[in-house]
């Protein structure tokens, strides 16, 4: 069975009604106006055709084409009534757009009068190909914006939708020690996940910096450990834990520039003694516990409140 792919625009021309895109403020002309005045009317209003109204009744359509034909015929000046198109293709306000598009295609006409379904002489508006295109574009733009808002919201209501007295989402990454090839990969995955959860870019960036530095520390100094991000409605806790060797002097380790990293690490662009200071700088609360021979536990807290919704 052949499958036909329906494009978004095709779907839209079926869903949308003529009334949504037509021009309601229509410039009209009376049937007794002489042809010689038509050029001026068209030019003044920057249009190429217009409906002819006898009182309130739609009696025809006159266009630039009719005017050119009149010129070519070198006919005498006379009322528009004599040169206008009387057998009109019309559409109703509640017709689907696809019907109008079909009529444009079949007839080659530039405009279709929109009339009352019960009274085909009652003019409600005019529809040009331009109206159709503009209408579709506007609808696309609105749909696009709504989609953006919806996506944004899905992300933001994530925690509001979760019904519980206490909610926490824990993401854990196992970091291998001394494996420099993979170093940073866990932070990379954490960062992407936070993005998908709809955490604001500024907060994601701060968490990513802290997590990356913490991960580097685990790789460089320990035989491995875990990186955990605990996401709660109000706070995001980043925890790096390992089981050794521990930090001899925490106060020194927190000094920018103090480093015990081996040269090979420095050659890779790290180990300059900026790790812990960077983590401390990027988070709202910083705690570190370490015992020689036992291990280190580092907790960086980020207060979510405003930041979570921050999309800047």
């Amino acid at each position, binding site marked *: 069975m052949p499958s036909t792919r329906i494009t978004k625009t095709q779907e839209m021309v079926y869903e949308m009604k003529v009334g949504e895109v037509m021009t309601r403020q229509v410039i009209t002309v009376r049937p007794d106006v002489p042809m010689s005045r038509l050029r001026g009317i068209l030019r003044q209003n920057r249009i190429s055709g217009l409906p002819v109204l006898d009182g309130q009744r739609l009696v025809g359509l006159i266009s630039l084409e009719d005017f050119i034909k009149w010129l070519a015929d070198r006919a005498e000046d006379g009322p528009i009534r004599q040169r206008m198109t009387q057998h009109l293709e019309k559409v109703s306000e509640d017709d689907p757009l696809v019907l109008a598009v079909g009529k444009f295609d079949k007839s080659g006409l530039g405009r279709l009068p929109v009339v009352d379904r019960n009274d085909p002489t009652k003019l409600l508006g005019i529809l040009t190909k331009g109206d159709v295109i503009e209408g579709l574009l506007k609808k696309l733009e609105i749909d696009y914006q709504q989609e953006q808002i919806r996506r944004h919201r899905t992300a933001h209501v994530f925690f509001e939708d979760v019904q519980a007295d206490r909610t926490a989402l824990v993401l854990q990454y196992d970091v291998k020690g001394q494996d*420099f*090839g993979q*170093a*940073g*990969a866990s*932070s*990379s995955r954490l*960062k992407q996940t936070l993005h998908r959860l709809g955490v604001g*870019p500024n907060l994601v*960036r701060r968490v*990513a*910096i802290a997590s*990356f*530095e913490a991960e580097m520390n685990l790789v460089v100094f320990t035989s491995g450990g875990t990186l955990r991000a605990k996401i709660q409605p109000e706070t995001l806790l980043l925890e790096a834990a390992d089981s050794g060797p521990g930090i001899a002097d925490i106060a020194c380790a927190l000094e920018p520039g103090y480093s015990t990293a081996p040269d090979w690490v420095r050659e*890779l*662009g*790290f180990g*300059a003694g*900026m*790790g812990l200071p*960077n983590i401390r*700088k990027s988070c709202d609360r910083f705690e570190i516990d370490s015992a020689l021979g036992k291990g280190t536990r580092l907790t960086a807290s980020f207060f979510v409140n405003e930041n979570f919704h921050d999309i800047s």
Partner: protein
Amino acid sequence: MTLEEVCDILEAEVVAGGNLCDIEIRTACGADLMSDVLAFSKSGAVLLTGLTNVHVIRTCEMVELAAICFVRGKRPPEETVRLAAADGLPLLMTGLPMFEACGRLYGRGLRGCSENGR
């Protein structure tokens, strides 16, 4: 300026992400210390560096830099290029030393990461 202009000014070769040459670059930073990049760079900046290992790419990914230019003719290893391509991060390579590369870009109006507020 666009990344392509950065490329011209530095007489650089595009190593990866050639299709992204029309992205707009406003700021730049020069560093061989990745912790400094993490701490002081602005997202959307181009990084000039002499380091070519994969951690440069990972670092840039963390802080969302727009592109990297390797200075002093250092060609990044295959692994680095591959990771950059996977991340959609354009890589350039210039024969100029760090100081001259930074100077040229600054002279042509590119600003540093501590300037322009934001």
